Every structure is written in structure tokens, then in C-alpha cells.
């Protein structure tokens, strides 16, 4: 199943705007945290930048989400640092 991944701010600068990820069809459906683990394994830069210990946040279908939220076919997942607007 295809999952659309988007990055913003410092994460975007390190990894690019977006990438695609295909979750294996067999087995349990993914969670946001499981998708993150797959992305972290893609490169050293991914592992360094996609780090919840450094304040990484996630959104699923354009709403803030938790790491254990389920991810579905065609979802848009975004990863970014803490927001600093206003």
C-alpha cells in the first residue's frame, strides 16, 4: 500500500519535500511509528533528522497524530520539527 510522506522545515532541507513508501501487503497494518522506523532505516541522514528525541512531530492526513495511530492506504504522513509560527 502506498503512503505519501512529506517533510517540512529543517527535515525538508535534509531529506527533500516528499517521498513515497510502500508498506508490505502481508502482516499487520502500519502505525505512524512503524512507518517512521522504515524511513529512519533509509539513510544516515534519515536516522539523524527523523528523531523523536529531538522533538520530531507528525501529522496524518493534515492533522497532528500520535506514533501509535494506524496508517491507511493512500494516507499522507508529514514529519517536521516543533512549530514556531505566530
Amino acid at each position, binding site marked *: 500500500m502506498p503512503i505519501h510522506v*512529506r517533510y*517540512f*522545515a*529543517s527535515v*525538508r532541507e535534509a531529506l527533500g519535500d516528499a517521498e513515497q513508501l510502500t508498506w508490505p501487503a502481508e502482516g499487520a497494518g502500519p502505525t505512524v511509528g512503524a512507518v517512521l522506523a522504515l524511513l529512519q532505516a533509509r539513510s544516515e541522514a534519515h536516522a539523524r533528522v527523523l528523531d523523536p528525541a529531538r*522533538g520530531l*512531530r507528525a*501529522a496524518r492526513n*493534515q*492533522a*497532528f497524530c*500520535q506514533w501509535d495511530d494506524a496508517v491507511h492506504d493512500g494516507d499522507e504522513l*508529514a514529519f*517536521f*520539527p*516543533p*512549530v*514556531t*509560527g*505566530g
Partner: protein
Amino acid sequence: MSLDAWQDELPHLSVQTQDFDLGAEVARLRDGDLGVGAVASFVGTVRQWVDGQQATLVLEHYPGMTERRIAEMMAELRQRFDVRGLRVIHRVGPLGLGDQIVLVVVTSAHRGQAFAACECLMDRLKTEAPFWKKEVSPQGGQWVDAREQDAAAARRWSTSAGNDR
């Protein structure tokens, strides 16, 4: 509150690169509403950094999610406070020293509700809407760090989303 009450707020919200005019926005909000007894507004501006080196600020956002998240906060604000009129403008893109960044205007019958609603929305905007500031100087760019005092300010309103998870 209906699930899509946030969509009713979209006409009162602008995320834009252009500047805005506080006086014109206040006039528009007051126009024809004789029940307004109080207008509270907040304008955030680009200030000089301590070392005086920064040349510009660049504001990045997550198009779509930004509008939805702010509109949801606006709908919640109307549930919580006695708000008559509400207007929010947040700029994105490159901004120079002294430029206006964000506008919140609230009209109400009385000042207490207007002040509180304006402050509540600003506190939540800072920690729950997907914007990111980058300082750009001749020496290079630097993403602005989220501040604990902003998270603490938002917590006063007993909400939790975004940075304060």
C-alpha cells in the same frame, strides 16, 4: 460543535504573502455590528535579534493543514468565549525587519472576553499551527527553536496538540 464548523471560519482566515492593514481589518469587522463594545487586536512583527545580525525571516507552512488547524481553533474560540467577530491573518514567505507577521482581531460585547479570546488564539497559534520560522543573515540560515515559554502559555488554556503532546 458540528464537526465541520471549522469550514465556516475559512472566510475569516487568510494565510498570505501580502501585508495587511490593521485599521482596515478592524473597520470591516465592526461594520454594521452595533453589538460590539470591545475590539482587541494583536499584531506580531519581525524584531531585531539580540546580536542585530539577522537580515530577514522566512516563514514556511504546511498548506492545507495550516488553514484547517487555525480554522478549528477559531471555531473552538467561539465556543469558549463570547466572540462576535474574528479575523486572523498569518503571513508566509520572506519577511524583513519590522514587517508584520500575524494579525488577530476579536470583537465582543465586553473587553474581558475580547482580551481573553485574542490572547488564547495567539497562544495556540504559536504552538499548534504548522508554521516554521527561519532566520536568514549574511552568515547563513538558522531555524528558530520552539520555546518552552510558548508551550507553557498555550497550556494555560488547557489544550494539547501540536508541540505540546
